[in-house]
């Protein structure tokens, strides 16, 4: 059973996308923990520790995705969860994709990514079969 934490870091109130994502992942058989709006990187890391999730998913439409992703990945590392995959979605310009994976994001799903692509990524996780 794959457990996923979905979070919106920063001052971004657009949660339509993350709610759609939560629903399709639920329908794909994941246990999705949604933490709500305006999360700091530290809050996200602590929630990931407590929930012992397999994946941390960030949704950002604010333009601050590079700095916030860097901070979340750093906080997770400090919390001892450096090996858990972080995926990033939202309004991500294609030129930033390589930058985010360079920071340690396991996958980046910019605007226009299909549901199938996201579900396919989760289906390929080692936890998906357990």
């Amino acid at each position, binding site marked *: 059973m794959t457990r996923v934490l979905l979070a919106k870091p920063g001052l971004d109130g657009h949660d339509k996308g993350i709610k759609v994502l*939560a629903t399709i992942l*639920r329908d794909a058989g*994941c*246990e999705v923990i*949604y*933490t709500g709006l305006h*999360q700091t990187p530290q809050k996200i890391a602590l929630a990931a520790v*407590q929930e012992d999730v397999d994946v941390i998913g960030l949704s950002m439409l604010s333009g601050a995705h590079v700095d916030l992703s860097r901070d979340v990945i750093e906080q997770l590392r400090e919390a*001892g969860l450096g090996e858990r995959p972080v995926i990033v979605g939202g309004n991500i310009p294609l030129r930033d994709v390589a930058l985010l994976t360079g920071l340690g994001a396991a996958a980046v799903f910019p605007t226009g990514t299909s549901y199938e692509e996201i579900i396919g990524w989760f289906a390929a996780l080692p936890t998906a079969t357990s």
Partner: protein
Amino acid sequence: MTPVPVEDAAVAEGLVRMRELAGALSDVERGGAGLRAAPRPSDAILGLVGPPGVGKSSLISALVRRARDRGERVVVLAVDPSSPMTGGALLGDRIRLAEHATDPGVFVRSFASRGHPGGLSAAIPAAVETALALGWDRVFIEPVGGGQNDVDVVACADHVVLVVSPESGDDIQALKAGILEMVDVIAINKADRPGASTLRTMLRSQWRGRGQGSIVLVSAADGTGLEDLDDRTREVGDGDASRRDAALVSAVLNDASVALRASLADATLRSAVIDLARAGDRSAAIRHLLEGARHA
């Protein structure tokens, strides 16, 4: 390694305990036995039950605040339903507990019910014991928002509060026969809204056996009645064994139904049971299932 900022030192310190508990709870959820708590106070485990939307999580958040003021370290175990179609779940109880997000003395874990009836997931009883055994002081349990048969929490909590709101007036009818008989306290949340005292009058006339004083008007939003509710949930339990036993039997039956369901993973047994049930002989189907489960 980046140095941890000074203001985060307490969080870093709490992190070790959090990771310890998080790992132990994951073991329990994978079917591990967990740890057994040494003798503990008789008010350590509080369950808050009630229909969806009445404010159980918000009320827990307010009670957690009071427990933290006393220096207690608190665990919240929150259960939401799994989809019977896909097995997936959306677990959203953390949202209402956001004010405690960076408090190293508050640990929140979300559980999916994973097909377990009765309002809890199969892991909760062992999860509660494990949290107490690892030195956390108080455990709040929030079962699936439900109705009259969701009494499993009564078997593992020291005190159980039924949370209702003025809007749930008619829904109380659905709760009458089941959980209403099993709880210690009824909290009418959102007491600032119209209809709260009318509901209290109605409940007083219907609710027998637990004493009228245990219906409390509260508001998680403005703080009304929280001290009263907090005090009542910290009194020594009345040790009502018959109620606890009834809930235990119910919980064991729920566990049994999960075990029986698992035995239906055997395709031969499953199709035989379906054939018998389809032919209209339910009792033969049940006998066959029990027989098959015994040999599984």
